[in-house]
């Protein structure tokens, strides 16, 4: 793949690309409480960008500032080169899909979807055509005359999406778009949402607290905590190369060991931790003796009943304390000899009945991992 090709898929790598949405030093205070604290953000055309974080982290406030429902205390942002500070909500090139859907209860599906077009003075016949087209896209053409209270949760969600899309905004803002759906429907709708975004080519900004949803949907994720971005990156970067304990812990599950740097050289680092010496096969800019953290994903640890062939780093011995059977995988909670608890997941490749090397409670086990798996974190 040429460099140019890579830039089309990942415009944030291109140093010459002009961001579509530029957020500069935005702060929002509610009284003494700072909801969003001096953040910068670039989002590129056509992205499906996720703001991910727990409740109260400021992600919804940021979204509401983009929509124009909240005014930033300081800072500025622009969409497609236009400064947004003095543009009221009803004139912004953004549309929002609300968490509660906010469908007008006194209007039919058709009237709800056509509302925005009517407000911008689009001729009646054109409204009808565009409403029909968009309802076809979300497969609701037979529900035109229904009122919102006659729709299921999934149907309401699609009406809300159609209503926000029909005006063809430059940016679509989605606040927990799948939050009100049950698990099965949510998984199915994730892919629908991605397909629709691909078809219409509109830039999506999604707010969610669900890390799985963020991983599936997005081109890039911004993990938010206490009003600031902890890390911005692609799903893979965020998962495989978290930059802080918060991100490592928030995305997926992880074992975190505290330790001190024993040896630091150009191509590897050794850290003494609660789980024994950990060898990392690439260099890091840390001082000898510095206090650091090692994050180790449970699925990256191997679990065996046989002792390793040779002594060395990246291995440990312990006793199985608990087993959680999840069907596809099992989680083993192993207590090391020094008392440290480590979670390990292992796929259930064969049915338990036929398993010859079945590991069970109170059994001695050996853990090992490759030198490329541990992540060294300084914060």
């Amino acid at each position, binding site marked *: 793949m040429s460099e140019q090709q890579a830039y089309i898929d990942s415009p944030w790598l291109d140093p010459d690309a002009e961001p579509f949405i530029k957020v500069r030093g935005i702060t929002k205070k509610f009284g003494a409480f700072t909801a969003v604290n001096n953040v910068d953000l670039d989002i590129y055309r056509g992205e499906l960008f996720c703001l991910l974080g727990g409740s109260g982290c400021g992600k919804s406030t940021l979204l509401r500032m983009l*929509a124009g429902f909240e005014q930033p205390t300081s800072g500025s942002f622009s969409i497609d080169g236009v400064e947004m500070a003095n543009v009221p909500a*009803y004139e912004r090139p953004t549309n929002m899909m609300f968490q509660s859907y906010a469908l007008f209860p006194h209007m039919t599906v058709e009237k709800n979807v056509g*509302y925005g077009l009517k407000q911008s003075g689009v001729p009646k016949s054109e409204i009808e055509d565009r409403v029909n087209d968009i309802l076809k896209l979300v497969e609701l053409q037979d529900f035109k005359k229904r009122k919102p209270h006659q729709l299921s949760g999934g149907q309401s969600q699609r009406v809300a999406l159609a209503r926000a899309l029909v005006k063809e905004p430059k940016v679509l803002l989605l606040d927990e778009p799948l939050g009100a759906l049950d698990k099965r429907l949510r998984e199915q709708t994730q892919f629908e949402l991605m397909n629709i975004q691909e078809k219409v080519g509109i830039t999506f900004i999604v707010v969610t607290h669900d890390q799985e949803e963020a991983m599936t949907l997005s081109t890039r994720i911004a993990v938010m905590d206490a009003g600031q971005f902890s890390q911005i990156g692609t799903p893979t970067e965020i998962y495989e190369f978290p930059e802080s304990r918060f991100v490592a812990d928030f995305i997926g599950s992880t074992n975190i060991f505290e330790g001190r740097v024993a040896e630091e050289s150009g191509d590897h680092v050794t850290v003494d931790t609660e789980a024994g010496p950990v060898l990392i096969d690439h260099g890091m800019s840390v001082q000898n003796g510095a206090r650091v953290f090692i994050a180790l994903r449970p699925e990256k640890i191997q679990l065996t009943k046989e002792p390793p062939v040779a002594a060395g780093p990246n291995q440990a011995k312990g006793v199985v304390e608990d087993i959680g059977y999840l069907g596809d995988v099992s989680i083993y909670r192993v207590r090391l000899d020094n008392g440290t608890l480590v979670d390990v997941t292992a796929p259930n490749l064969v049915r338990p009945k036929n398993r010859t090397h079945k590991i069970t409670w109170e059994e001695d086990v050996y853990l090992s991992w490759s030198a490329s798996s541990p992540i060294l974190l300084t914060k």
Partner: protein
Amino acid sequence: MTDTMRDSPVPEVDKALENPPLGARISRKIQSSWKSVVVFLPYSWLLIFFLLPFVIVAKISVAEALIASPPFSSLLEWTDEGILTIRVVIDNFLYIFQDDLYVTTYLNSIKISSISTLLCLLIGYPIAYGIVRSPPTTKNMLLFMIILPFWTSFLLRVYAWMGLLADQGTINNLLIDLGVIETPIRMLYSEFAVYVGIVYTYLPFMILPLYANMEKLDNTLNEAAADLGAKPTSIFFTVTLPLTMPGIVAGGLLVFIPATGEFVIPDLLGGGNVLMIGRLLYNEFHANHDWPVAAAVAIALLVLLVAPMMLYQHYQAKEAEAR
């Protein structure tokens, strides 16, 4: 009104225990008899003191006026041949519908209460909306201030306006002192004073149901409308107004119904110049002692108000269902 309640579980239990032992039967008798008492007491009270009086009024409205005590003829009479006959006289109704005074009064009542209702709505709507939009502590304080006048005397609130509107009253004195006018404007004992009085005393009846309705409105609907390009005025007419319609109807009826039958306000503030049906009825009864005509006027007023009353009941029932 219809009964939408399903059967209580009590009769089903009765069926299940077809032949219980004697002791249980007696104890169950006691259990069910206290329930009958609970229903019986208020029920019989309302039948005797609420429903029966209307039957009597209806009866008197079709009787003849007599100079006697009571001053009306009996509905049922034994004729000389010993046969029970019913005498229905519709003269009273013909009389009030042929007499200009009654027809004018009837129409004037509707006019005054309709305009007052509209004024209450125009003043009450922004006040209710302002309360909803206030921060929680201010909101409670404002609500309290709206309700407080309910607890003071209605009569004295009307009286307060007599002092303000009189020829020598506060407003005229003030305007003369300021040099705006030289001779007092006649405000008391006019239709204007009646409008002021009705709006003043019934404004809370408009504000409270409106507030209750607006309080339930979801602010995200306003945001959604703004997001879709609607300007504030457009949001008001396309979203807020239609969604507050139940509150407008409830508040409107709560003002219209009592205002139509109002007696104190036209009497004290309108004087002899303002004709309203409630005052006419009162005078017909107390001054003219024409009971059958008073009864007929009452029935006519009731007929006028039956539709709004049923509409109000209908809305209340729908609200209760939604809860």
